[in-house]
């Protein structure tokens, strides 16, 4: 004899377990988004603070513009954003919003770094790589280029890499694409204001980097080092690039 009530009761319990699992998962996923947003807000404040400080530079010597000038959390943010994108998917509206915010913060960081370099001279001048990628399946080499940039960043901690999703609908990124003449052929890399299209190995990129980076890297142990983070490269849900070290006199 079949006890229908027992089967219904079991169905209710099983459904409750499933509902709890989905609820818990959504709860933690939202917590993740909140965490990323919180980091972004902190970075925004940091950058605003740096910009304000920079405005005062006319009255303040360069030696006073130390580690606080650039956001230390941008690297962590890139990493966490990458994980969030992997979990929720590239089409998730929260992920898209966070990526846009992250891209803007990178641009602001890039502009501020350039201003600082110009104001405070060669010794502080960081080397930039701007990287355009796509994770819509139309760039088979983007994933590999991400590994290359991560490795390059490990070898040259002074390197500053800014990554941008080519397909992100953001006017600031469109402007960057126009300025650096980046078309749909990806991956695209901008080094020292020159644009390079197509996959580049670690060795090929090292040849393109200015000598000052190599000097700075080899003499790093002789100078005072202040830990500082740089943005990460996000390619197909894979995060790249670790912390950087800034050499100061």
């Amino acid at each position: 004899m079949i006890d229908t009530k027992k089967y219904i009761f079991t169905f209710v319990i099983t459904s409750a377990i499933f509902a709890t699992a989905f609820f818990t998962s959504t709860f933690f996923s939202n917590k993740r988004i909140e965490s990323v947003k919180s980091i972004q807000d902190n970075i925004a404040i940091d950058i605003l603070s740096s910009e304000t400080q920079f405005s005062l530079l006319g009255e303040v010597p360069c030696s006073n513009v130390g580690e606080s000038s650039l956001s230390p959390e941008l690297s962590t943010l890139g990493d966490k954003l990458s994980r969030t994108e992997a979990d929720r998917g590239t089409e998730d509206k929260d992920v898209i919003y966070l990526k846009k915010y992250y891209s803007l913060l990178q641009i602001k960081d890039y502009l501020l770094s350039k201003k600082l370099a110009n104001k405070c001279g060669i010794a502080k001048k960081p080397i930039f790589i701007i990287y355009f990628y796509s994770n819509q399946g139309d760039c088979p080499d983007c994933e590999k280029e991400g590994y290359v940039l991560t490795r390059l960043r490990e070898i040259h901690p002074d390197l500053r890499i800014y990554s941008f999703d080519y397909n992100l609908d953001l006017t600031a990124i469109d402007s960057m694409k126009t300025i650096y003449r980046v078309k749909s052929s990806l991956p695209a890399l901008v080094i020292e204001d020159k644009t390079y299209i197509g996959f580049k190995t670690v060795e090929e990129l090292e040849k393109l980097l200015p000598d000052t980076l190599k000097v700075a890297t080899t003499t790093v142990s002789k100078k005072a080092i202040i830990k500082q983070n740089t943005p990460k490269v996000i390619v197909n849900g894979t995060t790249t690039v670790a912390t950087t070290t800034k050499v100061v006199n």
Partner: protein
Amino acid sequence: MTYTILHGLMYPFLFLSIYFQVLLLTSFFENKKKIKKEEEYEIKNYPTVTVAVPCWNEEKTLASTIDSLLALDYPKDKLSIIIVDDGSKDRTLAIAEIYAYNHPEQIKVLSKENGGKHTAVNLALEHSTSDLFGCLDADSSVEINTLKIMVSYFDVDKNVMSVTPCIHIRNPRTLIQRLQATEYLINIFVRKAYGQLDSILVAPGSFSIFRKEVFEIVGNYRKAHNTEDFEITLRMHKAHLKVMNSHKALVYTVGPATAKGFFYQHLRWARGFLENSLNYRELFFKKEYGNFGMFTLPVAFIFIFYGLYATVFSVYIISSQLIISINRWVTVGFHPQMPIFDLFYFNTTAMSFIVMVMFSMLLLVLYIGNTLSDDKQQFYFNFPIFFILYPLFAPLFFGRAVIDTFFKRRNEWVLQDTKK
């Protein structure tokens, strides 16, 4: 896209799996008092019992099997043992005859050409005139009170037609035997819970006891794809005969010591299950066969394919990660880094929580299985071996069984399984 589809298809199976576990656990806990009461059953009238011991080249283990039967706490004049030598080429027959010579009032020896286990048991059946009939594999042994406990079920409830015991692996030593020790612990719980639903899947060959009229109703044993015990259970369910489980009736059996032996044993079980289930497909989803037809049998059948699908999904996930790692190594070389501990990166997907619940319930099942019988095992030591090795073996024997069944291949491999 592929991942989304594969991932999505996992959820119905996970739901069914949780449903199955919840149903068994609720059935067990709501009948806990009844199960406790079973332990107090006593025999008022001792029925006569015949135990058949089919042997095929069992010279190493036969003596201990017969010794355990002779030591049973049961009236000697009510218990007879029939040793059937199924054409052994070793000293099995000689050992059996020594026992028969020493215990002529209890032991009878029959010898025949090799014809398979079912023919040996059927020969014993023909020579049995007892009220109850059972069979004990020649590599298994029983505890002193096993038969008494099992017979009590027949004495208390006249509708009980068969009683299955609680089977343990004897002295698990090798990794494979430890794996099986955990597998058998799970089966102890599952069989008990199935018993509460009147839907025991298999009355195993190792010392399941039957009323003699069972064979008059459903017929004798058949070859049944070398799983005669499962097939006769199917016939019993078809005839609406009641099968119960006695969790305190301990039987010890020897598990295959090697991976090869384990594989072929489980391949035989899996193939036999598939073939016999298909032969008795008329039982599927029929209300008249109760929980067995509506749930136990169909779910067990589906689980074979679920297991294979879960393997495909796992292989897809692992190989995807592996391809990423290889791609990275090929591109920039191997540069290992220390993993970073951050709660942010913990896996919090719904599937991970569901799998955690399944895992927790499985641990509970193991715990209950271990506490049900009187023989407590160090399952916490053996179960990691089970969780690591079983998922590696299961897709192999289930996959092969499905392929063999589909292409109707002959069972040449059955000779590899020493416990056929």
